[in-house]
C-alpha cells in the first residue's frame, strides 16, 4: 500500500519536476544583442502559436515548449535567417497550425470572403431602400 502511494506521488509530481529540472534553453528568456534582430524575432514570435497553450503566442507563454521555440526563433534570426525562413521551418516541423499569420489558401478563403460579402449585401439592401425613398 505504501509503495502504491509513493508511486502515485511520483506520477503526480513528475511533470512538475521535469519542467523545473531541465533548465530553459538559453534564449528562451534572453533577448538578442542586436536590437534590429530582436525586434524582428519579437514580431515573428507574436505570430507563432504556443502549441501547448490555448490561444497564446509563444511570445507570451511560460510553457517550456514556448521557451524552446523562442530560443529556436532567436538563434535562427541571429544566424541570419529571414523571419519567413524561420516560419517556414517551423511550419515544416509542426504544420500550418503553428502560424497565426493569415494566408489565403484553399482552407482559409471563407475567412476573408464572408465579411466582405456581408458588407456588400448590407450595402446593397440599404442602397435599395434609400433609393426607393428618394
Amino acid at each position, binding site marked *: 500500500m505504501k509503495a502504491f502511494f509513493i508511486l502515485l506521488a511520483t506520477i503526480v509530481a513528475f511533470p512538475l519536476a521535469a519542467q523545473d529540472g531541465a533548465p530553459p534553453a538559453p534564449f528562451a528568456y534572453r533577448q538578442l544583442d542586436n536590437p534590429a534582430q530582436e525586434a524582428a524575432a519579437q514580431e515573428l514570435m507574436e505570430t507563432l502559436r504556443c502549441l501547448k497553450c490555448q490561444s497564446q503566442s509563444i511570445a507570451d507563454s511560460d510553457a517550456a515548449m514556448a521557451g524552446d521555440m523562442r530560443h529556436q526563433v532567436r538563434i535562427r534570426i541571429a544566424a541570419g535567417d529571414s523571419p519567413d525562413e524561420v516560419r517556414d521551418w517551423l511550419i515544416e516541423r509542426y504544420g500550418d497550425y503553428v502560424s497565426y499569420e*493569415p494566408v489565403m489558401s484553399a482552407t482559409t478563403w471563407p475567412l476573408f470572403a464572408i465579411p466582405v460579402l456581408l*458588407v456588400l449585401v448590407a450595402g446593397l439592401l440599404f442602397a435599395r431602400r434609400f433609393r426607393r425613398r428618394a
Partner: protein
Amino acid sequence: MIAEIGLAALWLAAALAVLQLLGGVLALRGGTTSDIAALTRPAAILQGGLVAVSFAALLYVFAITDLSVKLVAMNSHTLKPLIFKLSGAWGNHEGSMLLWVTVMALAGALIAGIERRLPEKTMQATLAAQGFVALGFYAFLLLSSNPFERLAQPAAEGLGLNPLLQDIGLALHPPTLYFGYVGLSVAFSFAVGALVTKQVTPAFARAMRPWILGAWVFLTLGITAGSYWAYYELGWGGYWFWDPVENASLMPWLAATALLHSASVLASRDALRVWTIMLGVVAFSMSMLGTFLVRSGILTSVHAFAVDPERGSFILFLLALYIGGALLLFALRAGAISEGERFSVASREGALVVNNVMLSAILAVVLLGTLYPLLTEAFDVRVSVGPPYFNPVGAVFTFPMLAVMAVGPLLRWRKDGFGRITKELALVGAVLLSGPILFALLFGMAILPLLGLSFAIALAVASFLPLKGRKLRRVPVETWGMVIAHFGIAVALFGMASESAFSTEKLAALEEGGTTQVGPWSVQLQKVEPVAGPNWTALAGRMTATYRDGEPVEIAPQSRNFWAPPQQTTESVLVTRWNGQLYAVMGSDANDGRWQLRLWWKPFVTLIWYGGLLIALGGVLALVGRVQKDLKRRYVTRRAAERRVDMENG
C-alpha cells in the same frame, strides 16, 4: 440539508417557469382577463425569490466547505480564504450556470413587478418567452449539471481551485458578464413578445432600452475587467489575446452596441423596426453562443467535446431551439411589420445605420474567426486564427465606423446635409490627417498603431462637438452619456495604439545587486527571498525601480508555487505613473547565480481600461437619463388620468 433546500427551491422555480409560460400563452389565446393569465406575473416574481434561495444555499455550502457536496469537494479547499471559497461557488461549470439562472430569474421578477407601459398582451407574450428561455436553463441545470449533488462518502479534503483563478478578478468577472448576458435575454424576450403581437412601437423600444443599456454597461465592465485580469495575472503584459473565451464576451457586446443604437432610433424616430427586432434576437444568440463555447468544452478541442457530449449537446440543443425558434418567428412575422419612418442617408439615422452595418461586420469577423478553426478541426484540418487575422481584418471595418461615429452625432434626425456642419467636418478631418504625418515623421510607426492614434485624437475632439453652442447645464443627462461613452472609445483606442507602438520589453538575468534599464526606468534587483502564503510558497524579488531621476520605488514581484492543486504562477507588480506602467515579473533561477526578470515599460497602457470605465460610465448616465424621463412621463400620464377622473366626477 441546506444543499437539499437549494435543490428543492430550484425544482420549484422550474415548475413556476412552466406556469409562467402557460399563463402567458393562455393569456394570448384567451385574453388577458382569464384567471391563469393573472398568475403570470406572480409566478415570475416568486420564481426570482426561489432561485435566490437556491443560490444562497450554494454560497452557504461553499462558505462552510461542506465536503459531502460533490461540487465543493471538486472545486474548494478548507485552506482557501473565505472570499475565494465564495467565488469558487461560481468558478465552475455547475455553479456558474446556477448564477446564470439566478440573474435571469431576478431579471424576470423585476420586469414582472414593475413594467406596466406596454400593452398587457405584449407583456404576457414577453413573460411567456422569458419563462420558456428560463425553463431550458433549469432543465439543463437539473438534468445534467446538478450543483447540489452529494457524494456517497464525504471527501477528506477538497481538490482546490485553479490558482490562476484565486484572484479578486475572478470573484467579480463572471457575475459581471452574466448580468450582461442575462440583460440581453430580457431584450430578447421583449423582441419575441413584440413579434408575437406585432406591436413594434417606440414604447416597446423605450421599455427594452434600459435592459439593453444595463446589459451593455455590465458587458463593458466585464470585458474591461477581464482584459485587465489577463494583463496582470498571466504575466506577459498582453491585454487581449483574441481567445475564444474573450471573443465570447466581445460578440454580445458588439451586438448589444448595435442594438442600443438602433433601439434609440426606434424610440425617438419610430424607424428601423425590423432591424431592431433582428438585433435583439442576434444579441441574445451571441450570449447563448458564448455560454456554449465556454461551457461545452468544445474550445479545448472538437474531439474533447465528442468525448463528453452530454452538456455541450444540451446547450447546443437550447441554442438551436431558442435561436432557431426566434428566427422562424421573425421570418413569419417580419413581413407584417412595416419598416417605419423614412429618412435620408445624410441624417442621424443614416449614420446610425452605417454604424450598425459596420458593427455587424466586425461581429461577423469575430464570429467567423472564432468558429472557423472549430469547423475545420471537425474535418481534421487544423487552422490557427489569431491576432494577425483579427487585428487587420477587424480594422478594415472599425476605422470607417469610427469616422462615422465622429460625425454622426452632429447630424440632425431625418434629413440633413453635410453642408451645415462643414466647420466641424474640417476640424475633425484636419486632426485626423495631421496625426499620421506627425507620428510617421517622429516615430516611423506601423500602420495600425498610426491609424489608431490619429483616429483616437480626432475622435476625442469630435466626441465633444455635440456640446458646442449649448448651455452645458441644460444638456440632458443621456446626451452627456453619449459624449462620455464616445470619448471613452477614443481613450481606450489611444491606450491600445500607444501600447502597441511604444512598449519596450527587457528580459534580463541579474545577480543580486545588478541593475538593468527598460525605457526610462532603471531597475535594481536587491535580494531574492522566500515567502509563504496560506496555500502557496513563493520567491520574491525585492527590487527598486527608478523613473529617470525620480524617487526610487520598492517592488517585489513573486514567482508562486501553489500546492493544491500544484501549479506555478507569476505575481507581477505594476508601477503606475500618469504616463504609463512599469510591469515587472520575477522569473526563475538562471542556474548561474543570476535571476531572470521580465520588465516592460508600457506608455499610456492604463488608458485602455480607463477608456472602458468611461464607456461604462457613459452607459450609466444614459440609463439614468432615460429612466428619469420615463418616470416623469409616467407621472404626467398618471396626473392627466387623475385630472380626467376628477373632471368626470366634478
